[in-house]
């Protein structure tokens, strides 16, 4: 069947507009990668190019010659992301399960207890003083795990999923068979919530991975600093960059291309894996949008 002209028109329009936007979305990364392979001389003299005049892998060689510091930074980030996401998922879904159960009389009070923190907060000053002065969490691994740990939105999404997708009758019959609440949660609710847990888990993990605010506020110790904050400092200071690759800030240091290469090294893994995880994110956004 031949397509009618209006359908051809909208497809054409789609290809032009979406194609252009998709190019805009990805071009900065291509520019980054291609220029990170440019020689320092080329950047200093001709600036960034769409296609570098002189190619060189010096910056990468420099990074991988002395990888201890960067591996440590990656290690901290992976540890915090893994531990934080695991704990967050477990405790969030446990709380969500409680407020989803109809026989819990105060479930609406508990939900509002969580929701109210979205409406009103004590502000940055008191938060900062509490965490650093009263809880003494500065310069600990725990601060990186605890600060971004819970999202009220995610707990409420989990609650809605459990309340609507897990039949009351399953829980009821498990209870009659003598299973206690903890057993029901671990052996029935968790397995049945696997798809939504995967989505929420990925959102949480992304939050941990990209967190630069917590370390900026609470971590001064170098060997506890995670990836994004390290990148931030490297972009801001040549001295810092030099130390990261185990070097002194000499005249010969290819500082501009080193910044680019470091950005690639810090961002690369996410760009490589996100296309495979995308469907879980899409599913998560869809679940979340059902009820604001």
């Amino acid at each position, binding site marked *: 069947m031949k397509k*009618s002209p*209006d359908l051809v028109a*909208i*497809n054409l329009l*789609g*290809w032009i*507009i*979406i*194609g252009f*936007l*998709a*190019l805009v*979305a990805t071009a*900065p990364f291509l*520019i*980054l990668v291609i*220029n990170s392979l440019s020689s320092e001389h080329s950047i200093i003299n001709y*600036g*960034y190019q769409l296609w570098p005049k002189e190619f060189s892998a010096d910056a990468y060689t420099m990074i991988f010659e002395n990888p201890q510091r960067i591996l440590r930074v990656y290690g901290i980030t992976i540890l915090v992301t893994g531990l934080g996401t695991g704990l967050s998922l477990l*405790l969030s879904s446990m*709380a969500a399960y*409680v407020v989803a159960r109809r026989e819990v009389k105060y479930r609406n009070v508990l939900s*509002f207890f969580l929701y109210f923190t979205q*409406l*009103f907060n*004590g*502000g*940055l*000053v*008191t*938060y900062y*003083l*509490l965490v650093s002065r009263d*809880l003494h969490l500065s310069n600990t691994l725990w601060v990186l795990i*605890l600060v971004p*740990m*819970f999202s009220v939105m995610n*707990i409420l999404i989990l609650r809605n999923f459990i309340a609507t997708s897990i039949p009351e009758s399953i829980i009821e019959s498990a209870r009659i068979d003598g299973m*206690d609440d903890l057993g029901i949660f671990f052996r029935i609710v968790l397995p049945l919530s696997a798809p939504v847990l995967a989505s929420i888990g990925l959102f949480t993990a*992304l939050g941990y991975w*990209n967190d*630069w*605010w917590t370390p900026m506020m609470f971590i001064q110790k170098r060997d506890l600093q995670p990836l*994004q904050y390290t*990148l*931030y400092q490297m*972009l801001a200071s040549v001295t810092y960059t030099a130390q990261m690759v185990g070097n002194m800030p000499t005249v010969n240091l290819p500082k*501009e291309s080193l*910044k*680019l290469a470091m*950005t690639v090294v810090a*961002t690369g893994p*996410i*760009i490589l894996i996100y*296309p495979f995880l*995308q469907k879980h*994110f899409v599913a998560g*956004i*869809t679940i979340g*949008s059902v009820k604001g």
Partner: protein
Amino acid sequence: MTTKILHNRQGFLFEMIRNGRLYAMFMPVAVYFLIFAYLPMTGIVVAFKDFNYQGGIWGSPWNGWDNFRYFIESGKLVQVTINTLLYNTLFLVAYLFFSILVAILISEMGSRLAKKTFQTMLFLPYFISWVTVSALVYNLFNYEYGLMNTLVKGWGMEAVDIYADPNLWPVILPFFYVWKWVGFGSVLFLASIAGQDKECHEAASIDGANIFYRIRRITLPQLKPTIIILLLLGVGRIMRGEFDMFYQLVGTNGNLIDATDIIDTLVFRSLVSTQDFGMSSAAGLYQSILCFVIILAVNGIVRRQDKSQALF
């Protein structure tokens, strides 16, 4: 018989005994929010104090409304309020417009492969931290080596110092806001479009309505609930800034500060750089209360119109 007796006992204690284990399962999250969200709320009194490190929040002397007076008299209150409102309005409108546009155009594409590929490409910026985005923006705009100036000079024109021109940022910031979020937003609307009834489109098509007419009369009206929810959430957050974005893209650049200072950046800068706890906490409290009032007002209006659309 036994259930009947149980139902007669509705007390708090009885509930705790009966469902104690369930409440215990809620405890970790409850303790977390008590410490990290409710405890800081008690500290808002610091906005009415002359803070010093020895005294802390409770031991520092009171100074009444001095912090607020200073916040107003410095001219900062008006400036950051206007900036925050204007930027957030621009962000919200641009974000909704482009998300809807992208969702509709993608949903009408014939090729599945094209749909998937484009969606993946548009989603990329969502996964990137603002730190990386700041590096990308710097690569494009920096005066000495930036790609834009390389190209501009290549065409024989004068190089532009974007980081020194405050007039450009009300365009640049919304641009990158949309750039980062449109992949996410379009998924929201695509989900909504996928849930729409196809028969309506087919019937209209048989009656001779072309695709543009059908989008305007069938697809768009059905997106209204999603648009309203996102608008409500957006208006509720209108006094909260995208701190990550402003701090990473603009930072503490003196040339741009008047044009790009929002409440969140002021609060942060006062706390971290100038250690001005008074200004910082006064501005923070001002923001919290304003947000709270706006949310209640918006919710009240919506509730009166249509109860099911209200947030609470």
